[in-house]
């Protein structure tokens, strides 16, 4: 997280830590974690933790270790591309089903999914929150969770970012309606934050709460603007996938 601050896990109780590769995810209910497809495309049995802001083993152990039941990558994700040279991050979304239900509490609770109304379409200027243990301005990765607030911007802003060390031609990058661009004044997600939630406030509710509007997906340069998978576009797939894979008493 660029431009972020140390965060308590109680402020981001839905935050999931993926051990390897280091990444993030969003807890959406007792049995399911939402993350980016590129986080799990090479790992069908990721180890995850919830409930701890610190990655120190003794702290992590105080949280909950999550065991994978199965990984389901969106069928539209383009398999096989080398992550270092990938230019097409369309449909960068996956679901991880857990073997056992997560016990909720002050440090662990899910983030809401977007509703179907147009109010859940992020608008430029909407202020959201990101979190993770990824690269910061000063460190490749951090041991304590960091968070940041940043606004939604136009996708154009993300397109206009120039890479310091381009790995591809600008025109090669795929931008789609499945993506949200967000960032401002150096506030951005970075390597290691992938899969984490871009949380926006649920519209028109008396008691404030957040929903996962996007998932940290990719960007041309950390500290500028980042691209987030637009979760609202995948609600049908998410609900159908959870339904199809639910046993008795699951979602």
């Amino acid at each position, binding site marked *: 997280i660029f431009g972020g*601050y140390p*965060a*308590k896990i*109680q*402020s*981001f*109780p*839905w935050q999931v830590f993926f051990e390897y590769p280091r990444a993030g995810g969003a807890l*959406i*209910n*007792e049995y399911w974690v939402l993350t980016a497809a590129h986080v799990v495309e090479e790992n069908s049995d990721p180890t995850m933790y919830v409930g701890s802001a610190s990655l120190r083993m003794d702290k992590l152990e105080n949280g909950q270790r999550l065991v994978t039941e199965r990984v389901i990558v969106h069928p539209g994700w383009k398999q096989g591309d080398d992550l270092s040279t990938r230019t097409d991050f369309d449909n960068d979304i996956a679901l991880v089903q857990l073997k056992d*239900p997560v*016990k*909720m*509490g*002050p*440090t662990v*609770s*899910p*983030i*809401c*999914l977007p509703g179907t109304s147009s109010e859940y379409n992020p608008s430029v200027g909407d202020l959201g*929150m990101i979190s993770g243990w990824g690269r910061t301005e000063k460190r490749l990765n951090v041991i304590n969770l960091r*968070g*940041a*607030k940043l606004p939604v911007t136009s996708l154009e802003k993300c397109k206009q970012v120039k890479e310091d060390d381009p790995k591809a031609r600008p025109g090669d990058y795929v931008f789609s309606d499945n993506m949200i661009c967000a960032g401002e004044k150096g506030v951005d997600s970075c390597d290691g934050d992938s899969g984490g939630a871009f*949380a926006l406030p*649920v519209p028109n509710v008396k*008691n*404030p*709460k*957040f*929903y996962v509007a996007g998932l940290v997906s990719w960007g041309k340069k950390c500290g500028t603007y980042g691209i987030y998978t637009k979760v609202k576009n995948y609600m049908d797939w998410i609900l159908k996938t959870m339904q199809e894979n639910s046993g008795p008493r699951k979602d």
Partner: protein
Amino acid sequence: EPTMYGELLSPNYPQAYPNEVVKTWDIEVPEGFGIHLYFTHLDIELSENCAYDSVQIISGGIEEERLCGQRTSKSPNSPAVEDFQFPYNKLQVVFTSDFSNEERFTGFAAYYTAVDVNECTDFTDVPCSHFCNNFIGGYFCSCPPEYFLHDDLRNCGVNCSGDVFTALIGEISSPNYPNPYPENSRCEYQIRLQEGFRVVVSIRREDFDVEPADSEGNCHDSLIFAAKTQQFGPYCGNGFPGPLAINTQSNTLDIIFQTDLTGQNKGWKLRYHGDPIPCPKVITANSVWEPEKARYVFKDVVKITCVEGFEVVEGNVGSTSFYSTCQSDGQWSNSRLDCQPVDCGVPEPIENGKVEDPEDSTFGSVIHYTCEEPHYYMEHGEDAEYRCAANGSWVNDQLGIELPRCIPVCGVPTEPFNIQQR
């Protein structure tokens, strides 16, 4: 040895008998015969009461005759001057002369023969109950048709015992009814009904004609009913003296009809039936009996259905009804079963929620499920109220028997993310 005949002559006969002599003759003829003793000559000193000289005829220690004086033949065709018939087969004749006989007396000559005794007519007591047949030297008894001679060879009886009645309804009468019943008989009838039925006997007044009791109230002919623990009777007389119906309280009954040697009465006729034992009618507020009857008796079957909210538990199985049968002992089968309030038991726990154990878990009780707030909430509304239903389940108006679910509250951090910017 018994003889068929004999002669008795006084001492010195036909000459004068001596003084002071006593002579005894013991006469015995065979059994079944009597003795015909007759004197052809009798010339003994006459004295008052034959005190001086006499000839005595003694039977069984009793003096039957004492003779003295002179006799002459009464009939020209018979030589006998004295003629006796004794129905016994033994006699003793004793001739006695005293010390002074001033005149010459020639004594006596007597003869005896064995004669047949007609046992059937010669005595006041008839030896046979029915037919007496005399023969020379004896007699035998015989019986009318359908009678048999008892072992005593004197009394006739009728074979009227041994009948066993097992039908639930029947009629029994004395032998030959309405013709006179046999004398000297003992008739035994048995009514044997299945357990669960009780014999009820009824005799119409006009169907009873038995030799009346004597002056002391004793029945010589009598009808007795003997049940397991009770006896009814003896009954006798013209017209049944007992109740209209005799409830014996027993499934077995022995009927004994005893008659003596006398009487010419019609007899009796009775009807009986088996009355099923009743079972108590139990009225409870928790159950309904089908069929509903004023009285239940042996073999009746009822279906007992519990009213709503009640059940009968047998082992681990609960049901809303059961069958009960009125048994032969007057008790209902399955009497241990009872309609009890349905108990829904301890409610099932739910994940991430709780329910308080109710004080009362029977029909109508109410429980509430709650979720572990603030991290979980009730999926289908705030209040998951469940009521113990008649089927033994905790039931919710919306979910039925399905348990409520506590699902995680989403999107609400425990602490806000506040950026402390400088």
